[in-house]
């Protein structure tokens, strides 16, 4: 209410300046007249009275200035005057003007560019609903592991994944995935695409709705793997098949094996790895078919999976971590590779699982570039500051 009145009064002062000024003049004149009359009544002659009153008042202009300063709109006015003055000055020195605009533009541009990079790899959440619930399950402070590492994120083995899925209670749904590269050419030159190994729960837990067909389900990811299907990304569908209406049911050759397309992911979903968009997703159970003698699916020392899930309501990250720690001994006991020597085995059995926030996805770029990017953003801001200070002086 009071704020509104203040605003209204201020706007009146800004837009009906002439009238407000006139009223102020009249009021001050009236004050002066009254003072003169009063002094004449006390016995001064007119000239003396006017002089005395003027001295008392101390200059009408300065009084007006102080009245104006009592209200916020004077700030706006001063700013506007400064701006006009600045622009007038600039017109006389075009070289300085160009340098000023250029350095500011460069400074702002650099900051924006760096921030966009940071936003993309660090700040933006995955394009799934309630991304803040997403939690990664991995070994806290692994400090080295023995075995075969066949992925960009070799966090866990498939036997571990089975154990975690069976035993954990902190997450309402869990899934495993691993990035890979597939050759989809039926013959001739190699045609590599970005692939994902996904457990049957992957799309369901992420809560994505297919654009076409259906996604892979837990039934598609059984040990026998009778009819492995493949889910393709929107971009892949557009790029390789020109948005073919009848994509669902078509066969794609992946590493010389035919896979039937079951569905298409929506355009907004690029995967869970920031900075790398997936093209095709196949169930974990198809791994032995595709990798044949290099398969790590059933190897206890084959590291290739990342496990993620949604925290149950009421489970904090700390509580989930504590729970995962508690079930760790049993899990690692059950998945210990038999061929390990005692030293490796002791290290292996000492692993502890933990819960880590995954709402912004997984990113190798992030680990490599996050700190340098923050540093660069800081430097960019500093440079902009220096440029501004330089121009201001």
């Amino acid at each position: 209410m009071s704020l509104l009145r203040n605003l209204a009064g201020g706007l009146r002062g800004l837009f009906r300046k002439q009238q407000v000024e006139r009223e102020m003049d009249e009021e001050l004149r009236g004050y002066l007249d009254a003072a003169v009359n009063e002094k004449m009544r006390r016995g001064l002659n007119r000239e003396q009275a006017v002089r005395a009153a003027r001295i008392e008042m101390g200059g009408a202009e300065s009084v007006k200035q102080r009245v104006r300063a009592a209200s916020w709109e004077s700030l706006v006015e001063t700013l506007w005057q400064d701006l006009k003055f600045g622009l007038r000055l600039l017109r006389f020195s075009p070289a300085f003007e160009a340098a000023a605009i250029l350095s500011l533009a460069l400074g702002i541009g650099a900051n924006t560019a760096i921030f966009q990079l940071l936003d993309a790899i660090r700040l933006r959440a995955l394009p799934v609903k309630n991304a803040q619930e997403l939690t990664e399950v991995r070994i806290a402070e692994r400090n080295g592991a023995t075995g075969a590492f066949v992925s960009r994120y070799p966090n866990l083995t498939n036997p571990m994944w089975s154990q975690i899925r069976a035993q954990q209670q902190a997450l309402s749904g869990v899934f495993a995935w691993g990035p890979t590269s597939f050759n989809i050419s039926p013959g001739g030159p190699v045609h590599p695409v970005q692939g994902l190994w996904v457990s049957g729960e992957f799309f369901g837990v992420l809560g994505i709705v297919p654009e076409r067909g259906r996604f892979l389900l837990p039934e598609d990811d059984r040990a026998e793997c009778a009819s492995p299907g493949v889910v393709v990304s929107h971009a892949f569908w557009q790029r390789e098949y020109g948005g073919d209406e009848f994509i669902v049911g078509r066969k794609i050759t992946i590493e010389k094996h035919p896979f039937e397309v079951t569905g298409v992911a929506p355009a907004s979903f690029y995967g869970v790895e920031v900075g790398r968009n997936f093209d095709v997703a196949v169930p974990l159970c198809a791994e032995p078919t595709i990798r044949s003698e290099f398969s790590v699916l059933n190897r206890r020392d084959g590291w290739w999976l990342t496990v993620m899930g949604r925290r149950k309501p009421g489970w904090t990250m700390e509580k989930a971590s504590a729970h995962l720690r508690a079930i760790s001994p049993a899990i690692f006991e059950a998945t210990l590779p038999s061929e390990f020597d005692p030293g490796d085995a002791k290290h292996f059995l000492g692993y502890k699982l933990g819960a880590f926030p995954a709402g912004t996805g997984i990113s190798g770029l992030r680990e490599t570039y996050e700190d340098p990017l923050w540093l660069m953003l800081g430097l960019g801001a500093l440079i902009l500051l220096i440029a501004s200070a330089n121009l201001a002086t």
Partner: protein
Amino acid sequence: MADKPSGLVQGTLDMLILKTLELEPMHGYGIAMRIEQISKGVFQVNPGSLFPAFRRLERAGWLKSEWRDTANNRRAKYYVLQALGRKQLKGETREWARQAAAIARILEAES
């Protein structure tokens, strides 16, 4: 004049203006005179602080101003105390009395 005119304690001018207007609407010079007379010349308010105070109080919604004819047929801006201002005056008076009493107690204890 009993004493040399002294400066107003910071923040009390607003209270004095509100108090002066409690009786009836007045114009700027009238308010200045009334404060000077009632304080027996201890407080002399100069226009340089009086008019900014009017603007401030008006913006706060404690006063309203309107042009009226004066006794000698001139136009002058009269300030009228508003309900909000009355409330403010009450609060400030109470606070002032509390502080003045406290200061008095402290001064007595010191001597």
